[in-house]
């Protein structure tokens, strides 16, 4: 039977742009161009490799996000995913991670899955908790923060490099996996892939399709609130010296003046 893989990908403001908050203290998605979160490219890549190793597999990419988030889905499709699901609804604006995990869980269940693959963290919110929340909601094992992953005979195995130790993990499917940027470079879409992606199906869903009440999501449904966001004061210009042979000594002098030595 076909292995059904669902990859959750996020559309995020480009980190090299001048990212800000909007007036309602949500991420300003207009100030900076968006793209498929670079960390989710690793998730798509590992899904593709797992699919290639399986006899028969189908990859669906899912995103929860505004109209433009289709770009992220297209990129994933052009890398080789087979089809996409886009959950889009005006009521989703300002949803927190708890709410996003609810919507994604419903979308993933709607799609049907044996394996869910996510990135390690989004590059805008950088929380890194959605994978654990999604596993909790779906009631499947979480095999997360993997730098190496494989699936064989209904079992997923992987390596998790933690602070204190490197662990070899194992779980039975269905399961949820998240992968780090150590899992292997993501492929570039080929020209053929880009052309093919244009014809691949993208299913659009709104909250009512998923049976979610608007009060459970959005800013109003969030279980946390940002009350204040202030730009960090620019660091005051420091002293920059050119090394004329005494640079190390000058630096030592500075460190001594600051009581570091």
């Amino acid at each position, binding site marked *: 039977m076909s292995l059904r893989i669902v990859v959750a990908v996020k559309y995020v403001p480009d980190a090299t742009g001048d990212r800000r908050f909007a007036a309602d*203290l949500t991420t300003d998605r207009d100030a900076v161009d968006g793209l498929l979160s670079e960390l989710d490219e690793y998730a798509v890549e590992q899904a593709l490799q797992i699919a290639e190793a399986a006899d028969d597999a189908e990859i669906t990419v899912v995103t929860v996000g505004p109209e433009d988030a289709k770009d992220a889905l297209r990129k994933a499709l052009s890398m080789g995913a087979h089809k996409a699901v886009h959950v889009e609804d005006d009521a989703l604006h300002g949803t927190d991670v708890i709410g996003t995990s609810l919507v994604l869980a419903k979308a993933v269940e709607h799609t049907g899955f044996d394996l869910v693959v996510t990135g390690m963290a989004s590059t805008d919110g950088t929380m890194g908790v959605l994978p654990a929340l999604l596993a909790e909601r779906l009631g499947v094992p979480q095999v997360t923060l993997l730098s190496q992953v494989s699936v064989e005979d209904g079992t997923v195995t992987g390596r998790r490099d933690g602070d204190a130790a490197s662990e070899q993990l194992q779980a039975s499917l269905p399961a949820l996996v998240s992968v780090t940027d150590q899992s292997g470079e993501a492929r570039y879409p080929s020209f053929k892939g880009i052309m093919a992606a244009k014809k691949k199906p993208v299913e659009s869903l709104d909250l009512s399709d998923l049976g979610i009440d608007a009060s459970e999501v959005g800013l109003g449904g969030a279980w946390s609130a940002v009350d204040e966001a202030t730009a960090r004061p620019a660091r005051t210009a420091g002293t920059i010296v050119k*090394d004329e042979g005494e640079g190390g000594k000058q630096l030592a002098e500075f460190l001594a003046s600051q009581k570091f030595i």
Partner: protein
Amino acid sequence: MAEVLVYVDHVDGAVRKPTLELLTLARRLGEPVAVHLGPGAETAAPVLAEHGATRVLAADAPEFADYLVVPKVDALEAAAQAVQPAAVLVPSSGEGKEIAARLALRLGSGVITDAVDVEAGEQGPVATQSAFAAAFTTKSRITRGTPVITVKPNSAPVETAPAAGAVEALEVTFGDLARGTKVVSRTPRESTGRPELTEAAIVVSGGRGVGGAENFAVVEALADSLGAAVGASRAAVDAGWYPHSNQVGQTGKSVSPQLYIANGISGAIQHRAGMQTSKTIVAVNKDPEAPIFDLADYGVVGDLFQVVPQLTEEVKARKG
């Protein structure tokens, strides 16, 4: 007075420093109650008590080591039900954040991750966070349920505040999912004898400019002269010159030491995300246009192979 749960990060009862920082923060919100899972509670308890823990809820079972994350969530959930805390504080590590999130969902509560400060507020704890690679500072609060907050290392001072801290057994019943993800084997990280990267007061880092694995000896020598931890940019890690566990930045560790010394690092946004909140920043780079100089309190434009060894010698000489 309300009680506040503090999840204890430890190795066989040796309490790691970020947990002691959490006790400082917990005392601002109420009476700290420590939750100690796995072996070593009797060893940990006196240390936790000395830093303010009024009670130490302890549970030990093979599940905590043999299965990923979920057994610990089951235990914290049991602790939360027993204590009805005003808040739950968990150290911000990969695992800590996962535990906190699942706990929050089960408690019907919101979750805040990577706080760099926590204070009592009129509507419950107020958490300070850094956003967008530390370009912004935000203040947030939980609006529903028991606030569950993960806190980064170096966010508060370690303070002694002696309390009773007696060990009490915590009853834990593991749920269906507890044994879902088996830890088949575990290879402990080899100790370098240097301070922990996220906990160190001084971090000395090297980037692509270091030019090779063997050249990292130059960076290590400076670090050792200062008693510092060693960090690396992703370029240096990807090149295989230094272990990923030492990577500083968005997908590595986030550090906030008193002093950060960047050597041969350009200062890309993803690197800055992990070190921008350091108190004092020093950079050595041969390119005067390198963006790292925009952050530096003191910068030397020059070849690191000249500047760094000279600095190391000078530090050693001054320290005698």
